[in-house]
Every structure is written in structure tokens, then in C-alpha cells.
């Protein structure tokens, strides 16, 4: 279960936007405040815009802002958006995937792991993180 740098940066960028809301934040400011490489930040914000998490405004006073309320964005939504489904097993050629016999319970176990992950990630919103209200 490997959370990519992209997903991690994406959550941090959104937290910064939530902190500054409703102000528009420039990419440069985001890059500096969270110690993100600027080009990286730009790419991620573009992804977030396409996913509907942020809106962008062009021009001299341009920048990014949250498109939704911080309490409506769960960490799981962001991680899935950037990294895909929480637990996947890379596809193998059709007819080659054998879960019969000894390994027959394994798919269900991966599913169980996925559910545990979702419980954690879908139970925490950006608002929770800002308030430091992340329960055990």
C-alpha cells in the first residue's frame, strides 16, 4: 500500500488552500509554504482542478482556491483521485489468474484490507486535519 508523493503533496496543497480560503492562492506561494517544487505543484493543482477539487482564476490576481468545502473533501477522495483505487492487484493475462484451491480466500483478504484502508481515509476530511481532530 504505497501512497504516492503526488497524492501526499495533493492533500498538503489542498490543506493550504483550505487554510487561506476564501482567498485565491498563487502556485508560487503554495510551493514555498509547503516546500514543494513549483513545477510539481503546478502539475498537481492541474490534476486537482480536473478532478473538481479546486478552481483556477487567471490574471494578475489569479491562482487557485478550493472548489468545495474542506469538510466535504475526505482524504480518501484525494488519494483515490491521484493514485487510483485503494487496493488493486495489477492485471495479469486473462486465464492466467488462478485463485482456485489454496489461494481461494486471498481476493477476499485483499478486499478486507481495502475496507480497513477506506475506513481510515474516508473518515477524515480536510477540515478534520485543519482542526487537528484526527482520532485514533
Amino acid at each position: 500500500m504505497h501512497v504516492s508523493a503526488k497524492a501526499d503533496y495533493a492533500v498538503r496543497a489542498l490543506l493550504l488552500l483550505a487554510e487561506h480560503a476564501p482567498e485565491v492562492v498563487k502556485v508560487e506561494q503554495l510551493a514555498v509554504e509547503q516546500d514543494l517544487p513549483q513545477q510539481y505543484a503546478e502539475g498537481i493543482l492541474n490534476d486537482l482542478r480536473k478532478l473538481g477539487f479546486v478552481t483556477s482564476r487567471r490574471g494578475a490576481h489569479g491562482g487557485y482556491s478550493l472548489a468545495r468545502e474542506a469538510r466535504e473533501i475526505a482524504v480518501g477522495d484525494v488519494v483515490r483521485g491521484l493514485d487510483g483505487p485503494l487496493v488493486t492487484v495489477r492485471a495479469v493475462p486473462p486465464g492466467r489468474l488462478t485463485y482456485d484451491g489454496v489461494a481461494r480466500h486471498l481476493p477476499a483478504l485483499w478486499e478486507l484490507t481495502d475496507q480497513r484502508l477506506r475506513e481510515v481515509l474516508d473518515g477524515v476530511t480536510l477540515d478534520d486535519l485543519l482542526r487537528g481532530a484526527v482520532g485514533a
Partner: protein
Amino acid sequence: MRVSAKADYAVRACAELASSPHGDPVAAEDLATGQGLPSSFLERILGDLRRGGLVASVRGRSGGFRLARPSGEITLAEIIRAVDGPLVTVRDERPPSLEYEGSAASLLDVWIALRASVRSVLDEVTLAALVAGELPAHVREMAAHEDAWTNP
């Protein structure tokens, strides 16, 4: 986030070894065929498992691979760590190695909780339990709630 094909294949190969009658060694080709796994990939995985002390190779005509320890003592987490490194990484690092400031400070708690949730399943299920379909009580509770033991 993904369960790698490597981790999936490694667990399945170990499940085959756990089920070998009398613990007889199983040739790599038979493991590959038995579970429908790509041969050369499996060879690399068996190498990782051997270096991790989970399987041993047996030379000779009836040679192959066998588990190095009883299947009741090998957890799925150990198998996955042997081939794929730490169960949960963020930016390719273990959660405790990460540093967050300001508004992201609480994010570390989330990644730590994530790792705990994964461990709560994979550290608790042994190879023997997987093959027998017998889960520890608290894992069974999770499974019962979510109807998790029926395949889609």
C-alpha cells in the same frame, strides 16, 4: 495505492508450499503452473523469499522449494515485506520518517493510522489460516460485517 502483483504472487506461491503434502519440496515450474504465475517473475520472488528466510531451496532430483518455517508461524505481512518492503509507505518512506509542518501536521496521524489498519489484518493472518480459511476472531468480525469472504 496498490497491492503489487509481486505481493499477490508471493502469497499465492507460499500458500502452494504450505499445502504441499508432507511438506515435500515443490519445483518452481510447478508453483508457476499451479497458480498460473509468470515463471521468471516467480523465480525472482522465490529469491526474495529465500533471502527473507521464509522459503528454503532443496537441491536434487526431487528438489525445489519448501517453507523454511511452519505455515502457522508465517504471517502474510512477513511475506509481503520480504518481497515488497514496508507494508505502507508514503512518498516511498515509512510514515514515521515523514515531516509535516503547519496545516499538514495532522496528516502524519492519518498515515500512521493507515499503517495500523493494514497491519491489523496482514499481521494477524498466517499462511496456515489463509489456506484453511480460518481467521483470527477480530479479523473474522471485520469479515462478517463486510461479507468479505465471498468473492465478487
